[in-house]
């Protein structure tokens, strides 16, 4: 099989999406979806769209956000679960892509915000800058639907995959590495846990 290098590999700067406005446009479709974000900028992006009780911000434990999302998805099969993760987090938890693919949760979608950088630690390049293709890995592990978003024209199809198509879904968005304003959601882990459970489960949560 021939590699399609025009659609994989390193981002071309002119093709990168504006990160914060992309997340805002995607989450317009959210309705009651439960969202888990990985540490660093994905937490700020999610909070910038409006802090909600049904957001769970994984402020540490790098590489584990997709597995938190899988646990929720397995318990809540009628709800849509979105994992909003950075490329560094996804690379650290690469095994979790295989685990999610094998578990086949129909209600789970992963959106990787891939700026090809460790933005929190000084913009050092990640492996995706060297051509490691997360979407191709997801496809190879058996995700039900995958795509790369590079331009504004890709946004409607990205929304469809993330919110409507039977999962597991993997959408890799090639985004710029511009620093968006830091919007800090709560960091208290027990508070985040309790309010998420109360919003989801009602009185039986406590």
């Amino acid at each position, binding site marked *: 099989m021939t590699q399609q290098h025009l659609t994989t590999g390193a981002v071309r700067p002119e093709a990168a999406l504006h990160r914060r406005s992309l997340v805002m446009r995607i989450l317009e479709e959210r309705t009651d979806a439960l969202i*888990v974000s990985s540490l660093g900028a994905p937490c700020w992006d999610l909070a910038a769209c409006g802090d909600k009780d049904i957001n*769970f911000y*994984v*402020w*540490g*434990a*790098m*590489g*584990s*956000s997709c*597995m*938190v*999302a*899988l*646990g*929720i*998805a*397995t*318990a*809540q099969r009628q709800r849509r679960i979105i994992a909003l993760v950075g490329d560094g987090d996804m690379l650290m*938890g690469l*095994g*979790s892509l*295989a*685990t999610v693919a*094998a*578990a086949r949760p129909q209600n789970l979608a992963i959106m990787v915000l891939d700026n090809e950088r460790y933005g929190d630690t000084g913009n050092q390049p990640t492996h995706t800058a060297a051509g490691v293709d997360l979407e191709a890995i997801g496809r190879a592990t058996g995700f039900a639907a995958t795509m790369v978003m590079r331009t504004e024209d890709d946004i409607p199809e990205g929304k469809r995959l993330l919110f409507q198509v039977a999962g597991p879904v993997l959408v890799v968005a090639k985004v710029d590495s511009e620093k968006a304003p830091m919007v800090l959601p709560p960091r208290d*882990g*027990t508070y*985040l*846990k309790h309010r*998420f*459970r109360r919003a*989801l*489960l009602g009185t*039986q*949560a406590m």
Partner: protein
Amino acid sequence: MSGVPGNNACPAWAQDLHGVLVEQNVRQICHVPDGGNAPLIELCNRTPAMAVVTLTSEEEGVALCCGAWLGGERAALLLQSSGVGNCINVLSMVRTCAFPLFAIVSMRGEYGEFMPWQVPMGQAAPVVLGAMGVIVQRVDEPHAVMPMATAAAKLAFDSSVPVALMLSQRLIGTKRFVQ
């Protein structure tokens, strides 16, 4: 006890543990395939009320158990002592958020171990779990499995703390090379 037919070849400790998982309403089971826990994993695989997730690394299971709790279900992580080392950083999420964690650890690297590569992590497992604030309880005797597992599950889920139940090699048998 476990409610699963055809358990004749299954050791009593595994049937007892499975019975406790059912009785405690544990709905998600995650594991990296493990010779020690194998009979328990097999019982779980045959239990329709349990979703069994196979992991590539045990640290994924810690995060899965956190997610299960967020979603309103109880989960358990089945792992070998060598997998304890893979879990350490993710345990920071369990502590920071005060999630319950019920881990069942099959021991290697102790009582009659033939494989020297298993010894360092086996010996360090209770120490590093303790360093991360996990309550470690060890079972050596078959008659103690059910009461100790029940108590460990109640402690984890009712007091929202991480608990590791360690199954000694004296209980589950010392591994031998199989031709």
